């Protein structure tokens, strides 16, 4: 019987949650790397036993861990992330210029074809690649070197590159998102990048529909429709049907369109999930009710999913990398909260149950569907 392995990054370590296809009974291992911040873990699409983890902390910096046995054992690999050439400057929160400085790896995206090739999105925003299983890392400097780079600025969490979408048709086509710069695309493997933010409007920047400066929180796409992109922006849920050339708002009847996560159903490219959060100054669910919203129409029309989720006195957040979907026949949806809960819905969002309730604050959730 097939199963799932859920990879959870938290403020105080990593956890691996495993279940069979029923997704009712769970085996929980961890904490791995206890006491460290694990911003993200992800497995290779071609070798499910190959996992990568970003381990970091304010005291002792960044490490990358690799597992070749599905998370039972780990080995520290390369942790040197050096910007190519003159690092240059970007804007600080107050608009002054500050030097580009590496802080941590926010997101790890393994190649769809090669378990030894992996991309890392880092703070301050840049994209790195390893082709030797994480042993060494090289920046793809064309992104940071985009002409608008000096005008990029950090979001509240830092100036992070947090989303990396690899086009399954050709990995030379990549789309990344940076908070708070926006969305960028390359069609040549990372040498030349274009800002693709037309249609976005953001308060908090002088020119509300500027080429860059938008606080994109997360982007997602379905493998069979890589040109259809979904975005949870600071405010606004957005969609593009032409690879990001033009975006349109699909917030529709959401009760609030602020939020962090967004993801797409594994088998229905037009079914999308978000978790609305009250506002930019109140990062908790609206009215203390934890609700996932699902659109089966690719946006605009949304339904609240509440069965099994707390509907009173709930004041947690769901961070940008903390939602994932499995690809079992009945698609499973997962998300983690800053209160330490990881919820699963084995039925596309209709019903929910906590897998764990009391982990450290959850930073990221990924899921592997195992044969």
């Amino acid at each position, binding site marked *: 019987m097939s199963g799932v392995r859920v990879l959870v990054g938290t403020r105080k370590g990593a956890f691996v949650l495993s279940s069979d296809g029923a997704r009712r009974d769970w085996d929980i291992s961890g904490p791995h790397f206890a006491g*460290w911040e694990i911003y993200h873990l992800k497995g290779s699409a071609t070798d499910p036993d190959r996992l990568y983890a970003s381990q970091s902390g*304010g*005291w*002792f*910096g960044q490490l990358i861990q690799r597992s070749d046995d599905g998370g039972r054992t780990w080995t*520290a690999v390369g*942790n*040197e*992330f050096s910007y190519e050439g003159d690092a240059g400057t970007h804007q600080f929160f107050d608009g002054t210029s500050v030097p580009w400085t590496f802080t941590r790896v926010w997101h790890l995206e393994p190649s769809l074809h090669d378990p030894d090739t992996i991309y890392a999105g880092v703070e301050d925003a840049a994209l790195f690649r390893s082709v030797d299983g994480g042993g060494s890392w090289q920046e793809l400097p064309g992104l940071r070197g985009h002409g608008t780079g000096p005008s990029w600025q950090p979001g509240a969490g830092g100036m992070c590159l947090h989303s990396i979408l690899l086009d399954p048709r050709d990995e030379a086509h990549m789309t990344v998102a940076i908070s708070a710069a926006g969305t960028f695309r390359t069609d040549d493997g990372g040498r030349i990048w274009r800002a693709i933010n037309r249609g976005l409007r953001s308060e908090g920047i002088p020119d509300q529909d500027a080429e860059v400066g938008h606080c994109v929180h997360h982007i997602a796409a379905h493998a069979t429709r890589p040109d259809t992109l979904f975005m949870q922006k600071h405010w606004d849920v957005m969609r593009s049907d032409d690879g990001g050339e033009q975006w349109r708002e699909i917030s529709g009847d959401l009760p609030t369109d602020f939020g962090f996560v967004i993801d797409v159903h594994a088998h229905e490219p037009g079914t999308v999930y978000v978790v609305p959060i009250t506002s930019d100054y109140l990062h908790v669910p609206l009215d203390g009710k934890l609700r996932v919203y699902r659109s089966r129409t690719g946006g605009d029309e949304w339904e609240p999913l509440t069965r099994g989720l707390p509907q009173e006195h709930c004041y947690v957040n769901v961070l940008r990398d903390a939602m994932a979907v499995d690809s079992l026949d009945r698609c499973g949806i997962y998300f983690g909260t800053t209160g330490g809960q990881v919820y699963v819905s084995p039925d596309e969002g209709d019903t929910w149950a906590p897998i764990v309730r009391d982990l450290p604050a959850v930073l990221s959730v990924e899921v592997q569907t195992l044969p």
Partner: protein
Amino acid sequence: MTTHSVRVVLPAHLRVLGRVDGEVVLAVDGPVTQRSVLDALELRHPVLRGTIREHGTLRRRAFVRFFACERDLSHEPPDGPLPDEVATGAEPLLVVGAMAGG
């Protein structure tokens, strides 16, 4: 060239990372300085590269402190001599995560 036996105490996170139990005892050739001790430490435990000193610049990370003989040596030059008590092994060099938080 004289070889010194230098004792280093690591913070808990780095002992786990380096799979170190208790103190580390390092053979340091030549002058005993922050740089020579940390070079020897990183040679023995490559996983610690980048965790105490930044890659490239080899500057002490901002939240790392060096203590010995009840003194704060964090701001001493990296090529300056460490106290004789450290060079002779009478006292350890303490690598400490800066006190921060509540």
